[in-house]
């Protein structure tokens, strides 16, 4: 088990800055997810931790030991790839035993350890099959077994569910999480799927443009996004961000006659951050909107979607802003209807449109 520490780790490919200098500590037994859109530097970060990619500058510590310039095989970590990377010409058993043989373990040890992981992942019935014959989910289980069998200090996983069907992805997600709960191995997991990140991570590192945007628990990144990027990226759909102008306790939203009264406990923070008055983004999650006949904000229904247990309404609040409202299925709305709603005061957030940073109440005190 291990603590992983990145100190001012940076990666450049020629002129291209793939990862800006970043500090990150991953605690022993923690499941940390690196989340971001493609090209944000998350995979490069993971590969630097593994040693598959050399750092341009900075230090990587594994349990306090400087491993920055060690070969991947000397770092005592296991890497799970998106495309399984199983050897097609040998059986599942030999695939799992492969890393142990490479380490020169005795036959008995190999047999014992293979049995352990096979029982853990419940893949005993697959042992004699060739990897090519297995379903995507089973292949990924075997790949996990091969990683586990070495008992590494840490696991690095690069979108291990990315190549699976939606169905498998969901059940494998729970399986990997269960595995983590049972084993408590330090895990760094890379994904571009915010649902996966939320569901699995103890902490989420949101990355974009080669740098960290926010580090926090799922509930922190969901309810208290540090900036506009995180607010939009987390959630499906992301947070609604309505443009408006703040003055004297009210936000006049762009278009129509929508005036939103800012909750009392936010007024001081907004006043301070905006210097009395100024442009502001009002952020709220789709589930924070409450449809009511006397709601202060009105808009026209642009589209409606049945999403299983509830309905998602797309509301046009002015000519170019569409916001999402999650409503009970009893609400029936046609395209073009006018809908009024209010925002749950506990779930409203504000952002400075210039810096795109969240305005916080803590900062005001």
């Amino acid at each position, binding site marked *: 088990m291990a603590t992983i520490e990145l100190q001012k780790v940076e990666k450049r490919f020629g002129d291209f800055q793939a990862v800006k200098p970043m500090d990150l500590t991953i605690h022993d037994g923690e499941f940390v997810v690196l989340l971001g859109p493609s090209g944000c530097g998350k995979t490069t970060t993971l590969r630097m931790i593994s040693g598959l990619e050399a750092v341009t500058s900075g230090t990587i510590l594994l349990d306090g030991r400087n491993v920055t310039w060690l070969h*991947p095989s000397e770092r005592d970590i296991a890497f799970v790839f998106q495309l399984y990377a199983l050897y097609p010409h040998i059986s599942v058993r030999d695939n799992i035993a492969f*890393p142990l043989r490479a380490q020169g373990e005795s036959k008995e040890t190999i047999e014992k350890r293979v049995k352990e992981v096979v029982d853990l992942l419940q893949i005993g019935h697959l042992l004699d099959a060739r990897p090519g014959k297995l379903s995507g989910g089973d292949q990924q289980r075997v790949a996990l077994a*091969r990683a586990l069998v070495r008992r590494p200090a840490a696991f690095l996983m690069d979108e291990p569910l990315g190549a699976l069907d939606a169905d498998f992805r969901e059940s494998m997600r729970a399986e990997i999480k269960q595995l983590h709960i049972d084993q408590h191995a330090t895990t760094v997991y890379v994904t571009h799927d915010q649902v996966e990140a939320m569901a699995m991570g103890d902490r989420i590192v949101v990355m974009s443009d080669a740098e960290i945007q926010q580090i926090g628990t799922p509930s922190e990144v969901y309810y208290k996004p540090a900036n506009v990027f995180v607010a939009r990226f987390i959630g499906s759909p992301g947070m609604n961000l309505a443009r408006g102008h703040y003055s004297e306790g009210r936000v006049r939203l762009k278009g129509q006659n929508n005036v939103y009264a800012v909750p009392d406990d936010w007024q001081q923070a907004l006043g301070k951050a905006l210097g009395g008055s100024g442009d502001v983004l009002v952020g709220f999650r789709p589930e924070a909107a409450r449809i009511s006949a006397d709601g202060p904000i009105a808009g026209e229904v642009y589209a409606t979607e049945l999403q299983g247990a509830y309905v998602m309404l797309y509301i046009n609040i002015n000519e170019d802003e569409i916001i999402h409202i999650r409503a009970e299925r009893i609400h029936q709305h046609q395209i073009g209807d006018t809908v009024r709603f209010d925002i749950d005061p506990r779930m409203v957030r504000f952002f400075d449109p210039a810096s795109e940073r969240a305005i916080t109440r803590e900062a005001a005190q």
Partner: protein
Amino acid sequence: MATFYETGPGYPVTESIRVDRVSPTARRIHAVRAFVVLVFAIITLIPVFVMGITAFKSRADVVSVPPKIIFKPTLEGFVFLFTERAVVSKVRLPEFQKKAEAGELSLFERIALNTGQEITGPSDYVDRLKNSLIIAGISTILSVGLGLFAAYAFSRFPIGGKDDLLFFILSTRMLPPVVVTIPLFLMYRQLGLHDSHLGMILLYTVFNLSLSVWLLKGFIDEIPIEYEEAALVDGYTRFQAFYKIVLPQAVTGIAATTVFCLIFAWNEYAFALMLTSDDARTAPPSIATMLGRGGIEWSAIAAGSLGFLIPVVIVTFALRNYLLRGVTFGAIRR
């Protein structure tokens, strides 16, 4: 950024992916590689170079041992190539010399005179070259054109016994040409195709078709069928879809195939030697048999080969951008 999926967990990773770390070594490897390529290129080009200088050597220089690198260039070879000549009799020699002094002789006539000969008429070299152009050109167009349709059909339609047919087509290439020359010779004699342009065009077309069908099928297979289907639904006929959609995207492949077919038809020697004698004789056999009255005219042969090279070089050069992508058979993503 290179993606690298090969490595299993904990399996040692090769140093080579750490390009940024090992750049001095990489640079050295690069230099060695460049050197090897250079040496190879030189070895390949030596015969061409020798041919090039031979074309400008005089008779004496051609046969000198060891071969001369530095010599006095002359157009003798070209004169021998393009003209028929006769030895000037002793009686008429002074008359010629007078003409030469008066500047009434052309450059070629003067050079011929230096070897004691007079020009009696043009040689058949230009005709042979013309034959080559006609036969190779038309047969290339035919084999690429027909091949394109065949390849399209093989690629897109469910044809019964497709695999067998494709194998059969390729099998025409498995025999060395020499083996079939005798039967062909007899056939052509019967059909009156011997020593005719039509005969040679047919022969080269048939021979090249297998190559062009196979090459072009590969290229067409790579063009997603959705493009054509979209056009079909949009209101176009199959042929229009082929013409408007497939053709522009197959240009690379067509260019590559054209060059291959052209080079084959242009350089072909064995058939041409056996099946033509005069009317349809192409350049390769005629150059090789260019025996002057005084033995083998090496400089004329070299000069003839040089001229023979030019058309193919021009075509290949014009299509080189397509070729580079084409000969890798789509291995490089477009």
